[in-house]
């Protein structure tokens, strides 16, 4: 193997290892949650600059546990999609609830019980790696 080939191989391996993020699962989820109080904080996903997302987002309260529920979600796919609770419609000040579990179905994300939920008016689907906001839902 020539030095040039060796260099190209090393470069390729490094670029491959550190640039690729897996797309989100497409499995249709149907997570359920026991709800003891009303689901008053509810909103519908609306247009964002990237991606196509439909469905509802609401906060559920159950036994002092708060959850964000994405109901009947349908989203275009992308790398490194995350779910945020955000103070603004853009992800400026937010809580990261983790990676989007699937681009289809109903899914539940737990929220720190100490969080003052009234400060966070928006649920966002955000491509973290490339800083692309897919959609937002005003949940208050």
């Amino acid at each position, binding site marked *: 193997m020539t030095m040039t080939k060796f260099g190209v191989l090393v470069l390729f391996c490094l670029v491959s290892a550190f640039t690729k993020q897996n797309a989100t699962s497409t499995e249709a989820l149907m997570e359920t949650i026991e709800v003891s109080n009303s689901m008053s904080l509810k909103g519908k996903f609306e247009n964002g600059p990237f991606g196509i997302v439909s469905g509802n987002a609401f906060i559920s309260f159950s036994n002092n546990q708060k959850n964000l529920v994405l109901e009947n979600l349908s989203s275009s796919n992308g790398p490194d999609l995350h779910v945020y609770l955000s103070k603004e419609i853009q992800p*400026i*000040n937010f*809580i990261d609830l983790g990676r989007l579990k699937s681009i289809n179905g109903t899914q539940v994300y737990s929220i*720190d019980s100490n969080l003052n939920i009234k400060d966070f008016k928006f649920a966002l689907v955000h491509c973290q*790696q490339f800083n692309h906001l897919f959609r937002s839902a005003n949940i208050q």
Partner: protein
Amino acid sequence: MYWNKFYFFLGVIGIFNMGNQLKAQGIKNSNRNEFAFSSTIGENQGSLSLGYNYHWLIGKKQRLELGIGTRLTSVLGSKLNYTTAPANLARTYTAPFLIVFAGQSYENWDTLQVQRPLVFALNTTATIKYHVSKKLSAGFNIDLFGVSLGRSSSAILTSNGITKTESLAKPTAVNLLLTGDLDHGTLNSEAFLDYQFKKGWGIRLVYQFLFSEYRTNNIYQIAPDGTKVYRFRNKANNFGIGINYSF
């Protein structure tokens, strides 16, 4: 800070003047040139470096080599965590050199997760190398000062449980070795073992200690003492291989 810079420049002058001093003392010395390429990998990151060094061979048997040169290091990563960089916040005390023994002030640290870091650092490098046998040698090199360029990237700053998005984090432009967390910018250092497999050619095993640094533009950490922090550092222990050519 003033004394740090003073000691640093004294050191640089000393290295450049080393060959003349050895000649004046009547010590036999000759020299050689070396090109070295290495590739390392670590947690969520990797690096490539290409360097040129001018070496003085020292001693009757010329087993010791001291060198000065330049090196281009590229750092590539994914979702790499950078923590609060200023030494007065990162460590319990900041005396030059002794800072490496100082405790970590974790309570002051916040984390900037840079999504797609890519830094190119061009630095002046010092090297020391010892020939254990005819074919085997061991050494250490360290970046002294230089400049960095790189890709701007979005980043997530986590501070007091709240996260914020930085849309335009950039590599710190100026690199300067001031020891430990007093350092600025992106600085590479390597401990290595060379095995000469052919006249002039050697393969290299590398343990790398790599600092890289990003700056935020739109958001910042507010430290407990009220300081606004824009600089964040990643420290990595990487392992790799390389190849070098001497003439």
